[in-house]
């Protein structure tokens, strides 16, 4: 059974600081996703990572993938309050031509002024 573990599950940080969220998964993956969810809202796609060594950046967020270590990271640079949200990583393993995502429990991020 595929397991996806995120840490930390809860993170409170100050504006201007840097931090990294980690996502470990237990089996070979075809794709890894990062999503953001604001309270009471749906999931917003941040990044899709396909191959070993993939790195993608958007604003203050940067995601990377190490398929050999089965590890993805989401790095936050110079955090701002607007980045407060819950961040999920999700792993996709294609089976029989179909696919479903297995999500981590999420990292609840609070950025304080």
């Amino acid at each position: 059974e595929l397991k996806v573990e995120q840490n930390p599950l809860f993170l409170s940080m100050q504006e201007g600081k840097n931090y990294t969220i980690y996502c470990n998964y237990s089996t070979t993956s075809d794709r890894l996703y990062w999503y953001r969810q604001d309270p009471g809202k749906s999931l917003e796609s941040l990044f899709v990572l396909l191959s070993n060594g993939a790195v993608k950046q958007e604003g203050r967020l940067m995601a990377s993938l190490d398929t050999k270590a089965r590890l993805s990271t989401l790095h936050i640079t110079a955090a701002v309050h607007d980045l407060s949200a819950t961040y999920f990583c999700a792993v996709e393993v294609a089976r029989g031509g179909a696919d479903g995502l297995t999500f981590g429990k999420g990292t609840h991020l609070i950025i304080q002024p």
Partner: protein
Amino acid sequence: DAGVTQSPTHLIKTRGQQVTLRCSPKSGHDTVSWYQQALGQGPQFIFQYYEEEERQRGNFPDRFSGHQFPNYSSELNVNALLLGDSALYLCASSLYLGLRRDSPLHFGNGTRLTVT
């Protein structure tokens, strides 16, 4: 370009009742997946529909069933509701696995189901 739309947005049902949730995929998408998100948890995969057939199923009982229509829209049915079925139900659409590369699943805003 309309994204994924779900209805209703909120629903309150009594234990033992049945419920139907609806989803229209993003324009151009042909595959619909359903997820259950309990409060404070990550979404859990229920099942996926493509070409009007269930292609893959997560670890959910037979009380959860679905359907996909020729226009790619989908329904999720839950019978004999339990208190534990209270959750946010999310629909996601995409192109079938073999046709997409780095495009993500697109999620709707969800249906909040409360079972009393």
